């Protein structure tokens, strides 16, 4: 497949890894932001091919992992109501809330359906005028263009039985939260290519300057990731702190301005709690007042639900690059993908799940790396 196979070429990847080895003179800690990149790195064993001096830590860019517990509890409360069809992307179903998960609500008779696109949820609302259809609108900037379109489409069609439960988060504010922490170890970032495909990377330039840290816009295939690492290490070794684009086939500095305009029409900035991390000011999006009638939190009066995290789970430290999944005492024992304690064990893009899947299985059962 064009744009895929050539970026999985093992010879080219090994060539770039050798380049990285050649130029590295000291220990550097890099963070990949996006869970999709974490998955690709661990699956292909890229971190093990790198010289020992290059340490990769895994960032908070998995929407399933950072959706706050109380939002899950709100989803559970709404999905348990009669006459509600609750729709969600598939990987939210197993995320543990305080008491249950969406799967168990479904087992008890809740009408919960997995959709591929938010437009499928709008279609369900059209087909079921006697039901309330709710869509769980989670995600980063990548998912926002799709999620806002569901609201605009429902508005256009005059549907009054459609609403969304919004938990949108943004990457630049998360990067700033990580960099401003006194415990920060990250010296360079691989920025998330598809987030930047939507938003561009102009917002990262002042951040790189302020914290004196290089960032490279990076794609998802092994070659993209190797190129992102090489570019970042080059900057670190040269002592520069620019933002560079190693994913030019998909990303421009300004991003997709059509998509940004639609997002801005429907969403406005807000403070948002991140699961395991806590409140990050200005790090979220919520519906603008013009569209609050599509806000499921208001429609179903679940705004006051609060929740407390399990004290065993250290996913907050994992998501900030301060700990690796296998440094958690519950990892692989009390916490497994079948019985997840924290959200980072649920999603394929969660660092704990990636480590469990590719690092604890017998070699024969592992998918082949590079």
């Amino acid at each position, binding site marked *: 497949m064009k744009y895929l196979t050539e970026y999985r070429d093992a010879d*080219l990847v090994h060539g770039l890894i*050798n*380049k990285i080895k050649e130029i590295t003179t000291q220990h550097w800690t890099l963070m990949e932001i*996006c869970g999709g990149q974490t998955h690709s790195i661990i699956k292909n064993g890229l971190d093990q091919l790198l010289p020992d001096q290059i340490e990769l830590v895994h960032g908070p860019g998995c929407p399933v992992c950072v959706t706050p517990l109380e939002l899950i509890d709100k989803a559970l409360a709404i999905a348990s109501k009669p006459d509600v069809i609750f729709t969600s992307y598939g990987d939210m179903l197993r995320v543990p809330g305080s008491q249950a998960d969406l799967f168990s609500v479904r087992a008890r008779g809740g009408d919960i359906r997995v959709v591929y696109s938010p437009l499928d949820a709008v279609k369900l609302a059209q087909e079921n005028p006697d039901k309330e259809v709710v869509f769980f609108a989670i995600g980063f900037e990548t998912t926002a263009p799709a999620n806002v379109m569901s609201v605009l489409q429902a508005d256009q069609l005059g549907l009054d039985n459609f609403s969304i439960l919004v938990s949108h988060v943004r990457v630049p504010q998360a990067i700033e939260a990580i960099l401003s922490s006194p415990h920060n170890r990250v010296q360079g970032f691989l920025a998330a290519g598809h987030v930047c495909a939507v938003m561009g990377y102009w917002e990262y330039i002042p951040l790189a300057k302020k914290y004196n840290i290089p960032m490279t816009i990076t794609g998802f295939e092994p070659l993209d990731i190797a190129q992102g690492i090489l570019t970042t290490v080059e900057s670190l070794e040269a002592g520069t702190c620019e933002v560079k684009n190693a994913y030019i*086939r*998909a990303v421009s500095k300004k991003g997709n301005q059509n998509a940004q305009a639609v997002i801005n029409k429907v969403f406005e900035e807000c403070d948002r709690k991140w699961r395991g991390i806590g409140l990050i000011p200005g790090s979220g999006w919520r519906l603008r007042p013009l569209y609050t009638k599509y806000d499921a939190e208001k429609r179903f009066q679940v705004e006051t639900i609060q929740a407390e995290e399990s004290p065993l789970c250290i996913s907050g430290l994992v998501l900030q690059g301060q700990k690796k999944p296998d440094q958690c005492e519950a990892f692989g024992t009390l916490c497994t993908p079948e019985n997840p304690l924290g959200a980072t064990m649920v999603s394929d893009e969660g660092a704990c799940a990636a480590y469990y899947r590719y690092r604890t299985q017998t070699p024969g059962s592992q998918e082949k790396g590079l």
Partner: protein
Amino acid sequence: MCLAVPGKIIEIYQKQELKMAKVDFSGVTREACIEHVPEAKIGDYAIIHVGFAISLLSEEEAQQSIDLLREIIEAGELEDEEPV
């Protein structure tokens, strides 16, 4: 969930006032909304995420970046004394 993959646009049409496309992912065809990339043409490759095209891929940029990587690697190999 944030997985977004490149696919080839093979058909463009309107559906309930939205610009839609049929997109081919290595033989599997799915529908995607292309409202956010209105300049898309049949034959273009786009990155599709949760049923929406978020960006068109530039063939020229893709070729240039692969060529550049080959150059970087080959330049290194000439200097290498022993293969790693």
